[in-house]
């Protein structure tokens, strides 16, 4: 028998700065130089104005829960031991929405509109996953 490992993200040329920042404990996304739109997921062109000029800016890490579900039937054997686990969409203070996972909170206490903040889950020496927990600051 061998253990099935969870698939981990592999950075590509669009996403490498995102993962590198996360590994340093920062949530960074691209802000368009021309229209100011902050976007997720990372991409070569601005989805609003198609400009390719951008800057990787550090975000506040503050967000609210936009929608969430609890997965009871795992779709991949590596996740079988984690069920039931939440899959959550958060809306970042700066505008973009991202799929993520809420930690430090029982699934049945997650609510739409709940304030959350980013935390960094260091998986190994190369990969860190941004996740969110109920906001403590403020």
């Amino acid at each position, binding site marked *: 028998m061998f253990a099935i490992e969870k*698939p981990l*993200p*592999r*950075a*590509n040329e669009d*996403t490498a700065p*995102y*993962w590198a920042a996360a590994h340093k404990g920062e949530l960074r996304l691209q802000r368009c130089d021309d229209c100011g739109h902050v976007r*997720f*997921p*990372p991409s070569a062109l601005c989805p609003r104005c198609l400009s390719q000029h951008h800057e990787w800016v550090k975000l506040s890490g503050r967000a609210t829960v*936009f*929608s*969430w*579900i*609890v*997965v*009871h*039937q*795992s*779709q*991949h054997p590596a*996740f079988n031991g*984690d069920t*039931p*686990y939440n*899959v959550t*969409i958060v809306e970042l203070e700066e*505008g*973009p*929405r*991202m*799929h*993520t*996972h809420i930690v430090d909170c029982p699934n049945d206490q997650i609510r*739409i509109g709940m304030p959350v903040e980013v935390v960094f889950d260091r998986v190994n020496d190369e990969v860190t996953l941004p996740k969110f927990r109920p906001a403590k600051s403020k």
Partner: protein
Amino acid sequence: MKDQVAVIGVGCTKFGDLFETSYEELICEAAFEAFADAGIDPAEIQAAYLGTYMPGPSGGKAAVSLGDALRLYDIPITRVENYCATGTDAFRNGCLAIESGACDVVLVLGAEKLKDRGGRGLPRFGHPLLAKGNSAPGLFALAANRYMHTFGMGREMLAKVAVKNHYNGARNPKAHLRMEVTEEKVLKAPIIASPFGLFDCCPTTDGAAAAILCRADLAKRFRSDYIPVKGYGLAVTTGRPFFDPTFDYLGFRSTQMAARQAYKMAGATPRDISFAEVHDCFTWTEISNTEDLGFCEKGQGGSLVAEGRTSLSGDIPINPSGGLKSFGHPIGASGVRMIYECVKQLQGQGGERQVKNPKLGLAHNVGGPGAVSCVIILGNN
């Protein structure tokens, strides 16, 4: 274009766990039922469209799966794949072939054999950011939860869709899950991805369906009760609606836009539609789709089902066939199977599930979720 094309024959296999039937056998069964229904010699078919998400095991990604199954060689055959709108989009392409003047008689066939192939519903681990252990139920559930929060709707409302569609499917000899369910049974079923339990989800299914189209002015040669195509529409929006900051999660723009095109071509409004086969991959999807198709206001789809208006005897019966929920969902076959149901209903051959005096029937697929939608409107002659 309205009334340029007519459906002259349809066929559909029994849907289900068909481990003993091959992909090619499914194609043959659906096609030969359609040939017999139209009273046509297969040699008269001038072009064919195969709607399939996963072609036959030896067919690669091309249309040869259809050519080899039917020994239908030396004519144009095109494979169509467009997420869950695959079947209706194949039908739409068949209409275009005839309207262009390129062909007089076309075969449209949707086929899928999912149960022994694997791969269905697996999360998209390929993308470094979208990979979050999510699934098709999970993606639709994220929208459902937001919708239920916005309109204050509970899981009991979702359950009413499952109860209705299983009632209809239990009366359909070709449906996959031929059993009625109670609201209590739906609510107590194991959760797949909250708020969806087992009975909020359509099954994974094998099956095939076929339709034969011809120039409307030739249709009388084949039968008097041919079914004219009144309108169709196809709309593609972003494949990542979940990251669009303007997406409200309360419905799908692709459905609204595809419906607008189809109504315009048909010169009809939602009030003119007698019944509809609506994409109910999940119970919530049906509720939201009935709104996007214009049968009621946004937020009213729950009351529409609760008041019985979408049941067989209601003023706008939805999914008289049993829908994806009970009839099953072999992806590429589903849209063509909806055409099959619309044709049978409009010809008054709906049996125990016949709706009353239908004039216009509508078939609708949405996939992605929300990335692509196709709407077809058929009339009776």
